């Protein structure tokens, strides 16, 4: 009665082989590598680039152990971190700013394992080191920004429709246009309502005149917010690419939040600075008619506003924006060829170039201010006099204090602006040495605990203890194999969950062994006792695991970050333990005792 049909042994053997194969990559460790990916995701990564990388490395005599195409990037492996850093410099210089060259670690497992998609477990940031940010988009600001845009649009629209209007004011998200007569107001209401269908207009007659107030419809508001979030994610992705991080994660979370994970980033202060900056560029004309003394006192003439400039003085700039950062297609740091000052060379898109050409032609000998707007505060970084018409869409901006600043400004301009400011609402940084230590600690906790349990089981249950211990070890293999296959994130709490599930998994074997002992005590033959022990334990094992599974699933559902890692491992561990503790250990008992017809004694 204690014999499995052949197919059952084969099935168990097959699962063991698969589990072993997928566990294997975790034992090979990692080798230093350099990852090359294009800054713009639309650009192709192909064998041509692969060849270029190889020839660059060969030309400068950097020894490499392999170059491969992996998804949207190229990874080159090296023998040591020294070579890796040299290779990074070589590649970055050779490939230019169109490509991000980042240091990375790749699995050292042989290629055939990669071919069957056997990868090492995906380690969480607490095990590999890195930064986790949760950023919240300021949706109120996004709506206000949209309202400001409408303010400008109304102005243009009414002007082109030749409807006379007074002031256009804004309070929060509501934009109010003032009129002298009712007819003007009604004409404007007709005109604007057809052009801006997603706004709700309310006319009001007041003592001092007639007004028309526009508010965004709820759907329009939602759209603005969604757009702001998407735009911010795109911008963050660009900025992260510029930072040169291997395998970054940038994901939306909820309606207004973005998760950014940067594994292996060492300079967290720099990362935080670049991610959080909201810089955008505006080009406006300087109001040359303004009274210098009033400007110095901070009083803006009509149609202009005062912005501070780098040297501490005030400049009056016109409210009309000539160009914004949206027109920028590229920005590179460099130096002014005449003065040798740090500069940013900006390229404009076709429309921007045309506008810029027109404006410069019409305003020769007047000054033009370049404003850098950060966190809602504008600063004129430079306000040069226009000497001549500037065509071709290439603009040089000077006024940066250092080359570093020029390169930061260039990065921000290149990556685009954030649609709305963002705030870091959660940060988890783990230093690289701590990550390695956490792995060691988690590993030790598991190994020592496992050893102690095995010693106890073998001492207490003898041969059946050996079965139980082997089943427990196999459970560990299954769990690691499953985690590797699913590429679920393994965190330090996840490693704790491995230990915990191993401790709990032995429960099933204790149940079985105790039941066999009881059957023996009640006078069953050894064969019958084994059979009854396994058959009857199954129901209880199932029962006992369901409650823990309920806890695990709830934690996965409601938990975040590391807790989720704990929950995943807990749930998977319960599932694998049911298979290994019952079926696998039964197979071992059957193989050992099943064929002995006259079995007189069990070692239990």
């Amino acid at each position: 009665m204690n014999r499995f049909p052949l197919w059952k042994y084969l099935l168990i053997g097959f699962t063991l082989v698969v589990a072993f194969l997928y566990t294997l990559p975790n034992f090979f460790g990692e080798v230093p590598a350099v990852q090359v990916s294009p800054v713009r995701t639309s650009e192709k990564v192909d064998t041509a680039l692969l060849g270029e990388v190889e020839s660059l490395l060969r030309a400068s005599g950097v020894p490499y152990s392999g170059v491969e195409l992996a998804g949207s990037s190229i990874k080159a492996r090296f023998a040591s971190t020294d070579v890796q850093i040299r290779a990074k410099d070589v590649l970055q210089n050779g490939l230019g700013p169109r490509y991000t060259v980042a240091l990375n670690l790749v699995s050292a497992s042989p290629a055939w394992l990669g071919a069957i998609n056997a990868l090492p477990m995906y380690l969480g940031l607490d095990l590999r080191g890195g930064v986790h940010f949760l950023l919240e988009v300021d949706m109120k600001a996004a709506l206000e920004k949209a309202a400001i845009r409408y303010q400008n649009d109304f102005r243009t629209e009414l002007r082109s429709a030749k409807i006379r209007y007074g002031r256009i004011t804004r309070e929060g998200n509501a934009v109010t246009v003032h009129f002298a007569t009712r007819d003007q107001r009604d004409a404007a209401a007709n005109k604007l309502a057809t052009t801006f269908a997603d706004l709700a207009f309310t006319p009001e007659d007041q003592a001092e005149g007639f007004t028309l107030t526009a508010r965004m419809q709820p759907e329009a508001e939602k759209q603005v917010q969604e757009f702001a979030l998407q735009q911010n994610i795109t911008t963050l992705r660009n900025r992260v690419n510029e930072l040169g991080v291997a395998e970054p994660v940038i994901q939306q979370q909820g309606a207004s939040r973005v998760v950014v994970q940067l594994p292996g980033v060492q300079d967290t202060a720099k990362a935080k600075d670049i991610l959080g900056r909201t810089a955008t560029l505006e080009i406006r004309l300087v109001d040359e008619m303004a009274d210098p003394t009033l400007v110095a006192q901070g009083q803006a003439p009509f149609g202009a506003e005062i912005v501070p400039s780098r040297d501490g003085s005030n400049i009056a700039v016109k409210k009309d924006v000539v160009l914004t950062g949206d027109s920028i297609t590229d920005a590179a740091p460099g130096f002014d060829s005449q003065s040798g000052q740090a500069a940013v060379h900006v390229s404009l898109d076709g429309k921007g170039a045309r506008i810029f050409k027109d404006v410069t032609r019409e305003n020769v000998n007047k000054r033009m201010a370049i404003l850098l707007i950060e966190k809602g505060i504008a600063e004129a970084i430079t306000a040069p006099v226009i000497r001549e018409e500037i065509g071709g869409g290439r603009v040089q901006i000077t006024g940066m204090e250092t080359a570093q600043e020029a390169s930061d400004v260039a990065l921000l301009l290149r990556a685009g602006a954030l649609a709305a400011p963002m705030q870091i609402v959660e940060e988890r940084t783990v230093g690289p040495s701590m990550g390695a230590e956490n792995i060691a600690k988690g590993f030790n906790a598991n190994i020592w605990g496992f050893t102690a349990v095995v010693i106890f089981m073998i001492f207490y249950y003898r041969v059946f203890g050996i079965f139980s211990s082997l089943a427990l070890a196999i459970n560990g293999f299954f769990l690691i194999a499953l985690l590797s296959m699913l590429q679920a994130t393994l965190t330090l709490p996840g490693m704790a969950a491995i230990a915990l599930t191993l401790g709990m998994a032995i429960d099933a074997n204790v149940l079985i062994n105790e039941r066999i002992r009881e059957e023996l005590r009640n006078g069953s033959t050894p064969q019958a006792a084994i059979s009854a022990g396994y058959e009857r334990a199954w129901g209880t094992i199932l029962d006992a695991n369901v409650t823990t599974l309920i806890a695990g699933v709830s934690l996965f559902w409601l938990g975040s970050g590391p807790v989720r890692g704990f929950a995943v491992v807990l749930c998977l561990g319960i599932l694998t333990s049911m298979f290994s503790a019952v079926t696998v250990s039964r197979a071992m008992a059957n193989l050992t005792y099943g064929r002995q017809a006259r079995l007189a004694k069990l070692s239990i």
Partner: protein
Amino acid sequence: MIEFFPFRKTIPFMSWGKATTAISLLTFLFSVWALWDRGLNLGVDFTGGTVIEVAYDHPADLVAVRGALEKTGLPEITVQNFGTSRDVLIRLPVRGGGSAAETSNQVMAALTAADAGVELRRVDFVGPQVGKELYDSGALALLVVVIGIMIYLAIRFEWRFAVAGMLANLHDIIIILGVFAFFQWEFTLTVLAGVLAILGYSVNESVVIFDRIRENIRKLRGETIPHIIDDAITRTMSRTIITHGSTQIMVLSMLFFGGEALHNFALALTIGILFGIYSSTLVASPLLLMFGVKREHFIKPVEKKEEAVV
């Protein structure tokens, strides 16, 4: 055959009802008092704020560290050793405004300026809003686990078992929280995860005993209910101690080798496992008796259930 717990005779657990109720009530009241009087020392996960762990390449001079940090002008900084004399833990309360995330940068800049041999090990910054959300979802998770398990027990057995099992194990949870409050150990997200896992784990202990009680009710027709329960507990005792023992071995291993990060997690599990043995045997079953479980609850509907184990 080695047996540590060769209980052949039925141990009269139910006659100790008064004593166990008294013990439970006392520890429970103690825990409630500790929670009330001292409160949980909630970690940065729940309160918001910043925790920075740094390591020096030489034993850290806490006075110098404090001095360096005072220059930043940040309020209410606490500095303490963490683990070894070279590791320092710096805590800052939550600050309003967008600059909160910059705090860790400021701190690191000040520390590096004062002593270049400092290395950043870890930063946890949680904004007040996120902290509140984590707190809420933690409480919700506890509720969901409790309700989920009760529904399961009610379906699997009947409502008296569900309520008795849940009360017994909630009593464990309160005691874990009470001990954490009494010693002012830091209560973090990971500890919460451990508490919930142990809740599921302890309940399965009650399931095993309940299984046996149900089996006995059908088998031992002539016996009184208290005796039936006594018998069920006695027969499952050996298994209870061995499985809890082996789980405890793993948890102790975490406590000793897992480092500071898993320390409180392992402590919570240890308390949970120890009280789990006690409560599922000596709290759940008397409660069952108190709720008036009767033979008729099981005999009348002839349901086909597989026999319980152990």
